[in-house]
């Protein structure tokens, strides 16, 4: 039976990380009886293994649930879960386009945080109705009234009636459901109009092929119809349409305006379905496509290489499949003298990089070597041309370079007043330029800084957390490019330059980073039969050096009858270690070493 449009609510839940968004989603699903207890695992919507492990939401997930409201009517909710991390703003934006309203979860103890603001602004940009909810009221430190006032003062939305809940215990969650019915709008759109449906996600399934997730704005879509993807021009016959059960796809007869669901079709090429594209009927197409999404550009690049060179085609396949529902992931082939054939990949941030890397390793069983991540630099050449540099190895000869620019961001950091000093010091160290400071309330301030992206991609977030004992929150936005004094730092191992280890660095920190890099590599590279100099160089000038001493003694002292098996195991281990090495010249370098630059600030 199909729900009537006025009794549909399409909404998402947005929150700062750890404010309880996924827990609330779980409770709602549980309370509407969609799942039996046995099926109910913590964080139903986070069904990617990785998401559960890390306790974060990476991909947007959708689920359809049915709610019997107090007015006696039955409502259909399409709940779309969204990621909270700053790296995944793009995913949030996609989810929001499929919604009419947003439930804003705010922690009753912590109040508004940087990502709360960022997500609310995104929701308001999409003209969504925002319904605030105060969560974690069971915490001893909860101060719901303060948080309500804060929401009204800072965001400017009415919050006095906001449900005060504990998603963990289920307390007052019912009220959230009632307010969703009462305060969030029903979808608009004419079921008999010309089909206009927005693709907000897609996944690849080994049996069904490409599965497209969409929201119908106008018209109705049914199996057997010929549809046109307006941007790619691809035409396909719809095989199945349906909606999202918990962790499963439930086929149905049709999806009409206002509904959220999926379709499978005779789509051969994964590239034919582009997230943000509009689906319409081939025969009777709509006039123009829906606006789609703001295109995002990757901000962090690194090289991904298969540990086993023969797996290069597998890596390409895997990247293509991941890109299908992760439009922010970009890649193009590249080669490295040290690492062979691989891909230069672009990511939204370091977490995004890590997630992709782990998904490739877990879901596609690929063993990867990753090179140091870097940002996109702009190189202005003396011949007036400009190149966007994503791979340090491609930096032109210094004589051809007029000047270079690096990307900068405007960061908003929310911090309690006692740590303001520490955080300002941190921003200073990272070459930040102070913009402003506003007090949100007596004890909390919002700091604004301009920071080079390069300085925040590695470990800024961790540093922020540790210097504020976890009390600072952070969000940032790209602000363009700034001229900067940058140099390429090269690493020479046994006098040979290793292209995969080069990176771009702020000139004044080159010496220190070069020195640390040599120290790290010295610890990573095993002894060889000969001495190995490790050098850091800027241009032709060596700025740091370490030496891996030659191996002189490596003896198993005793070896008698009883320990022959054990001794063999030791030798096997020694041999096994070599397999995870990369041969560069006559030096074997462990794969981990290529990520050394990430660990420079650890000590």
């Amino acid at each position, binding site marked *: 039976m199909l729900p009537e449009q006025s009794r549909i609510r399409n909404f998402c839940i947005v929150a700062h990380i750890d404010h309880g968004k996924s827990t609330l989603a779980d409770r709602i699903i549980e309370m509407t009886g969609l799942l039996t207890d046995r099926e109910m695992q913590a964080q139903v919507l986070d069904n990617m293994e990785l998401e559960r492990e890390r306790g974060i939401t990476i991909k947007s997930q959708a689920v359809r649930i049915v709610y019997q409201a107090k007015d006696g009517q039955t409502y259909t909710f399409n709940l779309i879960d969204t990621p909270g991390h700053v790296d995944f703003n793009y995913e949030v934006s996609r989810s929001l386009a499929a919604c009419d309203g947003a439930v804003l979860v705010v922690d009753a103890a912590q109040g508004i945080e940087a990502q709360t603001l960022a997500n609310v602004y995104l929701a308001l940009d999409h003209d969504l109705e925002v319904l605030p909810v105060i969560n974690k009221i069971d915490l001893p430190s909860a101060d719901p009234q303060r948080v309500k006032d804060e929401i009204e003062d800072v965001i400017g939305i009415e919050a006095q009636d906001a449900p005060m809940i504990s998603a963990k215990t289920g307390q007052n969650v019912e009220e959230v459901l009632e307010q969703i019915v009462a305060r969030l709008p029903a979808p608009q759109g004419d079921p008999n109009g010309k089909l206009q449906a927005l693709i907000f996600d897609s996944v690849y399934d080994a049996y069904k092929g490409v599965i497209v997730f969409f929201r119908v704005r106008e018209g109705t879509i049914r199996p057997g119809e010929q549809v046109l993807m307006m941007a790619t021009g691809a035409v396909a016959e719809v095989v199945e349409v349906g909606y999202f059960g918990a962790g499963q796809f439930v086929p149905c007869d049709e999806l009409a305006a206002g509904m959220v669901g999926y379709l499978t079709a005779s789509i051969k090429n994964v590239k034919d379905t582009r997230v943000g594209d509009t689906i319409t009927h081939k025969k009777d197409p709509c006039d123009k496509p829906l606006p789609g999404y703001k295109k995002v550009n990757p901000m962090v690049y690194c090289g991904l290489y298969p540990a086993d060179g023969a797996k290069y085609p597998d890596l390409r396949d895997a990247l293509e499949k991941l890109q299908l529902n992760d439009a922010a992931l970009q890649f193009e082939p590249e080669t490295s003298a040290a690492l062979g054939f691989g891909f230069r990949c672009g990511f939204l941030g370091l977490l995004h990089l890590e997630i992709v890397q782990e998904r490739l390793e877990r879901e596609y069983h690929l063993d990867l070597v990753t090179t140091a991540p870097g940002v996109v630099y702009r190189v202005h050449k003396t011949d007036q041309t400009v190149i966007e540099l994503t791979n340090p190895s491609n930096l032109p000869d210094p004589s051809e370079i007029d000047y270079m620019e690096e990307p900068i961001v405007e960061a908003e950091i929310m911090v309690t007043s006692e740590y303001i000093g520490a955080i300002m010091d941190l921003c200073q160290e990272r070459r930040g330029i102070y913009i402003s400071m506003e007090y949100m309330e007596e004890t909390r301030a919002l700091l604004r800084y301009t920071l080079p992206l390069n300085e925040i991609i590695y470990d800024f977030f961790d540093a922020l957390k540790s210097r504020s004992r976890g009390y600072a929150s952070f969000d940032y936005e790209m602000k363009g490019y700034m001229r900067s004094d940058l140099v390429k730092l090269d690493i020479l191992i046994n006098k040979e330059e290793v292209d995969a280890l080069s990176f771009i660095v702020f000139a004044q920190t080159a010496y220190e980073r070069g020195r640390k890099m040599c120290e790290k590599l010295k610890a990573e590279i095993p002894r060889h039969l000969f001495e190995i100099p490790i050098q850091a160089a800027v241009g032709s000038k060596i700025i740091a050096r370490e030496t891996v001493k030659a191996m002189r003694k*490596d003896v198993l002292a005793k070896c008698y009858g009883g320990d022959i098996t054990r001794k063999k195991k030791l030798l096997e281990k*020694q041999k096994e270690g070599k397999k995870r090495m990369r041969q560069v010249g006559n030096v074997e370098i462990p794969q981990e070493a290529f990520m050394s630059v990430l660990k420079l600030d650890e000590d």
Partner: protein
Amino acid sequence: MKDRISLYVHIPFCVKKCGYCDFLSGVYDERTQARYVRSLCEEIRFLGAAASGHTVSTVYIGGGTPTWLDLDAMETVLRTLREAFSVSCDAEMTIECNPGTVTADKLQMYRMYGCNRLSIGLQSAKESELRLLGRIHTPERFLHTYDMARKAGFSNINVDLMTGLPGQTLDDLLYTLEYVLRLRPSHISTYALMIEEGTPFFERYGEDVKRREAGEKTLALPDEELEYRLYKMTQYVLEENGYDRYEISNYARQGYACEHNCAYWTRGDYLGLGVGAASLAGKNRGSNVSDLEEYMRRCSLLAERGQEALWQDDAVKKLQADGFVSPFWDGVQTLSRQDEMEEFMFLGLRMNRGVTRRDFEGAFGCRIDGIYGEVLKKLREEEMLVTENGRIFLTERGRDLSNYVLAHFLLGR
């Protein structure tokens, strides 16, 4: 199994456990010792019958401290051994000994049952080092034991030494070496102190080992440079004094190489007797159960209900393999031809004389170059080994880096 075999007999008892020791040994009361001796004799008789037709060419009684066992108990073991096996009249028969645990009577009894080689654990001639190691004896005690052994007629005596002790200097080690060299023992074994997990030394020096491996400054253990010098000094001093380094950690005067150990390195067949003892029988490698109670349980099962019942026991039933299997093992590994080739190389090359092409062909029916041609070429180029008149052996550098070299001979799957 081949016609000639070796025997290893394990006596797991000590006066006191040393801080670095991870061998299967400990302090037990007399009743347990007596039960163990009865059990061991059961096993000896059983395996003696199973190995009838084979001649025993070497015997090694190790521990623990075998000489700590009282005279009657050891006499029972030796007598049972001589009765159960046909020990060749010229067999090398070694018994391990710690200073202060033997008497003239004991030594004479060992001689009577054919023991002709004594291995004394001295470790160090410096009193402070002995105390640090947790040894029960003093240097004087060692001299006394050595003297008694000579008087009892032992002309073939090994002295065990340790290098790389916490706080050890080059002078300290030189003192110990010279102390021992004055006695001109026929054989000297030197081991670098290993810090094994699960020992008190691991608690104390485990972190230091990591520092040393990272090439950093150490707190107590000799750092990398000093350890290397200690190791090299041992080699030079002993070689200069007429000792031949016939294996990586063993030195002997002309004609006194330990035949029993050479049997291990040339892959001779050997049967281990006693708790935890290891065997190589044809293609099968096995180790006796290492749990003392379980070992004694199997022995009494054999004594009381016979070998049929022992083979039917749940723990024993699972031991199934072609060829020789002992019901005292806790598992059996049947070596593939590849395993045997690997062992042939990494054990054989431990010895100064190395391996010969002919022996390899004799054992495996194929040319060594067909299997290891490239490895040999590479290692020869790196000056790790030499091939000369059909013999392949390590250079001095190759011996210093033996782990690196020997790992090359593993063939992988």
